[in-house]
């Protein structure tokens, strides 16, 4: 057990000072100023600086509690240490302000404008401004330290209030459009000013809206969660599945139009979620680090475009979109095999490097002048919106046919097994039911082929969003089934120890290729949807940064965890936006990659299992800590017995 000292405070303060100076130097603070979070007190610009002394003032007297030891009780010491931290942060910022006042650094650092010093002192001007900065730093640092004195529950409640106000203030677009679409214009105009910022009185109202139900319902949520956690694994899985199905159904059926911008963002989120799910199979399940995943995305987009568009340069079969999908799957699977076969013998770093190269090669091939006749070179291919029209009758018939085949196979397999053992089990009945339903769907679909004719155009973002949602649901279902399947087990063993997996008789090459191909097909779905969403595809949409961002989604969300990937896509793509697509926070546009990078590093350091980890990953990554705690506890017990 270590207690923080003033040295720690100075060290943390110095770190905070560097962060603040960095944020100011890259121009984040000043350019975010236009965005008011709480009018008139707080803009996003100041917020990007002010959190530093407070957070670090809290962090400095953070207690590492090992099992079996008691933490020191909080006291004035925490406040003092926080204040020291805040002071150091402020002193460094003051030094910076003096520096940029004395020298013109603009030649090198473009964002260090003459107004920056003025901005950092909140317009007070030089001598007085420094005192102001110092005062704010000390106060915030002390306040951060004082948080330790607040008992757990009020603290978490307060934190939640602050978070909600920030979230509503920042993604005002989301809440505003939902409220307006639901006909709750009055709430909307109460919550937000005309310039879409939150006035102070609605901040108070949001605070109350968070605190009051939480106090009234105290313990209920925990009770529900506890009940969920004590359920057997199969029950938990069933509840999870039901919730996911309900969410998808909600997205499909509820006729709320979120407005074009929000639909656009949601469609992008869905697209990246789809690819995140695909990469999750390759990286999360099979443990193959594929950095060129964008290649399959490109293959899907290009094959969908060529197969459906009348504007493709060479080969124009002009298929309807759904007719093209099976071919896209086939082409993507082939691409997975072609890339997978040569690289499959490599591992770890080597695999990562080679796949990285393949990702770039794919883009360069599509861009190449000598293949211009096939892929349209740098101009790319325009996608024909008319080709995307689809008659749901045929879709229904297709799904019915697949269900009929699967049902018959299951029924047949279960029946031959039952005959051997002389009893009929429920599995054969389930197979029969699936087969009958499939046959019915097939018949209805063929009888009424045009009962729901559906046309999507790139402009109709709502349609695209729902369409993407269907594919995400399919991908999630496939991943979920694969995880607990035989091949899922083989992947797990492969990830753990390839040699032993091979010695156990697992065909390592087949297992790896299966992962590669499954991932490739899901990415190609993403690509095909991307093509119809964006309307024109060209090579520069398929840069390395795409692969990286999909990987970041998987890592931040939690490798191997479906919920994690969904959350990762929602948070990263929804809020920050994709590499070229806008998110809800348009201010972050220029700093997107920086934030991705910071998030990735922070996650690797603090929570390598991701935001919503698969149970298994948590075990893996915190094993050391767990063992250490257990060891210390055993030692303590031993000593207690001895005494």
């Amino acid at each position, binding site marked *: 057990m270590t207690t923080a000292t003033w040295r720690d405070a100075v060290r943390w303060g110095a770190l905070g000072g560097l962060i603040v100076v960095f944020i100011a130097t890259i121009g984040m603070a000043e350019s975010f100023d236009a965005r008011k979070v709480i009018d008139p007190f707080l803009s996003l610009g100041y917020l990007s600086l002010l959190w530093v002394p407070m957070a670090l003032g809290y962090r400095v007297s953070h207690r590492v509690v090992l099992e079996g030891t008691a933490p020191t009780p909080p006291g004035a010491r925490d406040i003092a240490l926080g204040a020291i931290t805040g002071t150091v942060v402020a002193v460094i910022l003051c030094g910076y302000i003096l520096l940029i006042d004395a020298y013109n650094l603009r030649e090198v650092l473009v964002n260090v404008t003459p107004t920056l010093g003025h901005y950092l002192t909140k317009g007070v001007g030089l001598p007085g401004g420094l005192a102001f900065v110092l005062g704010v730093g000390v106060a915030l640092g002390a306040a951060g330290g004082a948080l330790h004195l607040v008992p757990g529950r009020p603290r978490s409640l307060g934190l939640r209030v602050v978070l909600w106000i920030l979230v509503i203030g920042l993604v005002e677009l989301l809440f505003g459009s939902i409220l307006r679409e639901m006909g709750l214009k009055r709430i909307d105009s109460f919550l937000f000013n005309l310039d879409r910022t939150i006035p102070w009185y609605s901040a108070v109202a949001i605070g109350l809206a968070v605190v009051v139900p939480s106090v009234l319902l105290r313990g209920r949520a925990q009770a529900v969660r506890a009940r969920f956690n004590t359920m057997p694994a199969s029950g938990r899985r069933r509840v999870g599945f039901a919730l996911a199905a309900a969410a998808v159904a909600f997205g499909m059926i509820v006729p709320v139009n979120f407005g074009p911008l929000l639909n656009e963002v949601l469609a992008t989120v869905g697209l990246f979620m789809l690819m995140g799910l695909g990469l999750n199979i390759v990286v999360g399940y099979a443990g193959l680090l594929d950095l060129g995943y964008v290649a399959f995305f490109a293959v899907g987009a290009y094959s969908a475009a060529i197969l459906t568009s009348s504007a493709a340069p060479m080969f124009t079969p002009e298929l309807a979109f759904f007719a093209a999908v099976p071919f896209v799957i086939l082409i993507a699977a082939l691409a997975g095999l072609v890339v997978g076969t040569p690289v499959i013998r490599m591992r770890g770093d080597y695999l990562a490097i080679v796949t990285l190269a393949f990702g770039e090669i794919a883009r360069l091939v599509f861009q190449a002048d000598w293949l211009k006749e096939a892929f349209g070179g740098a101009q790319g291919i325009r996608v024909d919106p008319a080709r995307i029209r689809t008659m749901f009758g045929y879709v229904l018939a297709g799904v019915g046919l697949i269900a009929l085949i699967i049902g018959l196979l299951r029924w047949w397999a279960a029946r031959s097994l039952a005959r051997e*053992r002389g009893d009929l089990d429920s599995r054969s009945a389930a197979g029969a039911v699936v087969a009958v339903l499939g046959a019915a769907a097939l018949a209805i679909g063929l009888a009424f082929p045009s009962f729901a004719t559906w046309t999507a155009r790139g402009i109709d973002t709502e349609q695209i969003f729902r369409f993407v949602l269907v594919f995400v649901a399919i991908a999630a279902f496939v991943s979920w089934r694969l995880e607990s399947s*035989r091949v899922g*087990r*083989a992947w*797990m*063993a492969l990830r*753990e*120890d390839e*040699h*032993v*997996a*091979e*010695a*156990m*008789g*697992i*065909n390592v090459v087949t297992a790896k290729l299966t992962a590669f191909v499954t991932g490739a097909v899901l990415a190609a779905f993403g690509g095909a949807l991307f093509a119809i969403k964006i309307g024109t595809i060209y090579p520069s949409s398929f840069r390395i940064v795409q692969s990286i961002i999909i990987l970041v989604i998987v890592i931040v969300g939690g490798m191997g965890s479906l919920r994690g990937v969904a959350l990762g896509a929602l948070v990263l793509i929804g809020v920050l936006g994709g590499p070229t697509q806008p998110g809800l926070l348009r201010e972050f546009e220029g700093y997107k990659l920086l934030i991705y990078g910071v998030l990735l590093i922070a996650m690797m350091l603090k929570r390598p299992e991701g935001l919503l980890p698969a149970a*298994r990953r948590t*075990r*893996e990554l915190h*094993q050391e800590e*767990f*063992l250490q705690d257990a060891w210390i506890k055993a030692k303590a017990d031993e000593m207690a017995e001895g005494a």
Partner: protein
Amino acid sequence: MMADRTPLMQFRNVDTHYGPVHVLKDVSLEIYSGEIVCLLGGNASGKTTTLKTVLGMVIPSGGDILLDGEVITTWSTSERVRRGLSMVPENRRLFKRMTVKENLEIGAFLREDREELAADMERIFDLFPRVKERLNQKAGTLSGGEQQMVAVGRAMMARPKVLLMDEPSMGLAPVLVAQNFEIIQQINAAGTTVFVVEQNANMALSIADRGYVLQTGSIVLSDTAQNLLVNPEMRAAYLGEVE
């Protein structure tokens, strides 16, 4: 003494190369049903290569490997495992982050008679009651001795005709080594043929029926275990006696 029977597993003049390096040189050995046979040798004598060749992770450049009289030289690893060879790897190498149960299930990965798995698992619990207690625990948190039980159990889940053991005494405390060899005897008594590859000659010979001695890729001695234990050449080379 057993020359009139067909060996369960046999190496017939096997040569193995790693690129230009000639590792196994004209190795011939037989394992008969019900035996414990050990292959002794020092570092870099080719012991592990022999096991890799048995399992088909390395394909020999010459000679034949036979299982139950059938030539399996060109079979894939999975086919060999399916037909009755399974290995307990050196240093156990469990899938540490998977549960004990999952480890055992991976051992039975290739089996199609899913219904009998539960019964087989029970048989392993009879052999190692400790494994049953630890069933839902992560394999990496087990003690060395328990891990060895799981490793053996995992290999047994494949229902092998011949159980291959790579250096079972490696990295274990002397007490556990002894326990380990007891486990081998137990399994053998229950009807499984065992092929042990070992450096610890004393220990291995004390439980084996017969032994082979491998030196830089060639078999230099082969005899019954009792004879090898008293063989002066053997004692000088491997049991550290200078006389």
